[in-house]
């Protein structure tokens, strides 16, 4: 909304942006990143989603109209850019507690203690990439800051990562910069968080957990890389709570989900990296944002025929308002993720089912009556302008969404089978599963290759020797 306004202002067309009361601070923060900190906004009192027609009418006619007129006819307040530090600048000197107090007070930390990012620590990280420290991987909205290799190293240190994780961190920020991902939406109100899926030999090389306890903190690589993601979103992209991060309910960062590639190889299913267009065996990261979902227990049976009905039922039940990403403004960007344990995937595969077969099954069985689908969008979430009949007639959405005018006809929640994603991880000997409810184009799946430095093996061996030495020294 503000980005459209900024585009108008840039070509000499004055704008007024309509902003509900609870979003004024977000608008102020976002406008700085757009380079127009004084872009005018018109207050809409309260929130339109909880007002009757009369209350809305009163608010708009008595308050908002005047603000719009003022926005378009009165000169805005003057602004002045504030000075900031530069890369490599030492911003504070002190002991561990003082450093951490400084970082919290200046909104540079997530509230947990950080590892002090000293030059020595940062340079240790930089040894693990062939890219130059000042190389810019992209510009991240909403703050419009450069995603530099240097800043990746600084935040990696802070998160408690080891230097050898640096190739993963660089790949992650490449993914964050990819326009298809849509990082600029990371502060939207449903408060989704990014899940990182890791593939390739690097899982074992760096000791990522990919078995029992997947998605649980307690494993340094999985946990610290997940924390790095959130710190980078905060410090470089600019998503600070009460400002650009408008999550109504957020949650702590997600730890990295590493796939069990041994289990996948045994049953002949391709890993997520292959689904994302890479070759099997390549080191890759895949990111996507999810607003919810959860675990479901005891997927029982001796084959796919017994297990799949429960899996499909659970995928469907975890997706409700998310239909807004199926039609309406989301337009086919919903990509639900189902995580199966090796035990479940092996039991399904024993029945001769490929991953593609499972996706086809989900596409055909995760369906709801058209009247219920429409109710989510029309009555419960008042999502904009859409019409299944018209959208099909105009070729905007697949025909399957309007094959008849029967309100009880069953419609899918995605456009095609390949919109489903399936990963394998977790306790190898338990038959539980996990579904992630996706956030559509506000965090669309993106994959990137992890590029290792030329002398990776030597550097890794040195890092391990150093860790062993430090461990002995502390004994």
């Amino acid at each position, binding site marked *: 909304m503000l980005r459209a306004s900024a585009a108008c202002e840039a070509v000499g*067309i004055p*704008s*007024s942006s309509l902003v509900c009361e609870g979003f004024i601070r977000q608008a102020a923060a976002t406008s700085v990143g757009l*380079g127009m900190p004084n872009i005018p906004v018109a207050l809409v009192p309260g929130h339109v989603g909880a007002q009757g027609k009369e209350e809305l009418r009163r608010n708009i006619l008595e308050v908002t109209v005047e603000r719009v007129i003022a926005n378009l006819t009165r000169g805005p307040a003057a602004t002045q850019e504030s000075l900031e530090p530069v890369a490599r600048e030492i911003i504070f000197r002190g002991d561990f507690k003082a450093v951490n107090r400084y970082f919290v007070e200046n909104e540079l930390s997530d509230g947990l203690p950080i590892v002090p990012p000293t030059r020595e620590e940062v340079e240790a990280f930089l040894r693990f990439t062939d890219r130059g420290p000042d190389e810019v991987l992209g510009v991240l909205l909403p703050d419009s800051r*450069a995603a530099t290799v240097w800043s990746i190293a600084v935040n990696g240190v802070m998160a408690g990562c080891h230097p050898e994780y640096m190739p993963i961190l660089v790949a992650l920020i490449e993914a964050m910069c990819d326009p298809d991902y849509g990082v600029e939406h990371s502060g939207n109100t449903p408060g989704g968080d990014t899940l990182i899926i890791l593939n390739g030999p690097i899982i074992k090389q760096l000791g990522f957990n990919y078995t029992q306890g997947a998605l649980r903190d307690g494993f340094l690589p999985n946990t610290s890389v997940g924390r790095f993601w959130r710190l980078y979103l905060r410090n470089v992209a600019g998503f600070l709570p009460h400002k650009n991060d408008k999550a109504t309910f957020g949650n702590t960062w997600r730890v990295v989900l590493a796939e069990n590639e041994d289990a996948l190889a045994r049953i002949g299913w391709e890993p997520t990296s292959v689904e994302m267009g890479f070759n099997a065996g390549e080191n890759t990261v895949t990111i996507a944002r999810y607003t919810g979902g959860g675990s479901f227990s005891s997927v029982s049976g001796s084959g796919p025929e017994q297990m799949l009905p429960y899996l499909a039922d659970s995928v469907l039940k975890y997706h409700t308002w998310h239909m807004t990403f199926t039609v309406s403004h989301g337009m086919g960007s919903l990509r639900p993720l189902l995580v199966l344990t090796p035990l479940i995937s092996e039991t399904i595969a024993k029945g001769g089912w490929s991953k593609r077969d499972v996706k086809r099954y989900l596409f055909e069985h995760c369906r709801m009556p058209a009247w219920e689908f429409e109710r989510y969008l029309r009555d419960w979430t008042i999502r904009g302008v859409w019409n299944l009949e018209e959208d099909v007639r105009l070729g905007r959405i697949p025909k399957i969404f309007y094959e008849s005018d029967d309100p009880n006809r069953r419609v899918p929640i995605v456009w095609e089978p390949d919109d489903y994603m399936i990963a394998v991880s977790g306790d190898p000997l338990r038959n539980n599963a996990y579904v992630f409810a996706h956030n559509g184009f506000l965090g669309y799946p993106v994959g990137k290759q992890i590029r290792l430095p030329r002398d990776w093996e030597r550097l890794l061996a040195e890092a391990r020797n150093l860790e062993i030495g430090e461990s002995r020294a502390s004994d």
Partner: protein
Amino acid sequence: MFNGGTETQYEVLWPRSQRQTRFKSLAPRLETLEGKTVAQLWDYMFRGDEVFALLEEGLKARFPGVRFVSWREFGSTHGANEREFVAALPQRLMGLGVDAAISGMGC
């Protein structure tokens, strides 16, 4: 890292990076909305259709000669194609002879 006494002392670096945008001037404001053409830009969310209808009513009461280009003309400003939409917007507005724009809904 340096030893400035009994506690280990740290010299720490800035975790942010340089902003890539400089502050820009806003468009000159209009003297009046009378006789002007105002574009309605909507992200197709949060009752913007009702809000724009009310704004039209309120603004026409004050400026009978104001004209509007409906949000229907533009389509949603938000969605999977937002970047392309925003990039093409200035040309579309100028082609329509728009003098000012109202953009919603930030909710």
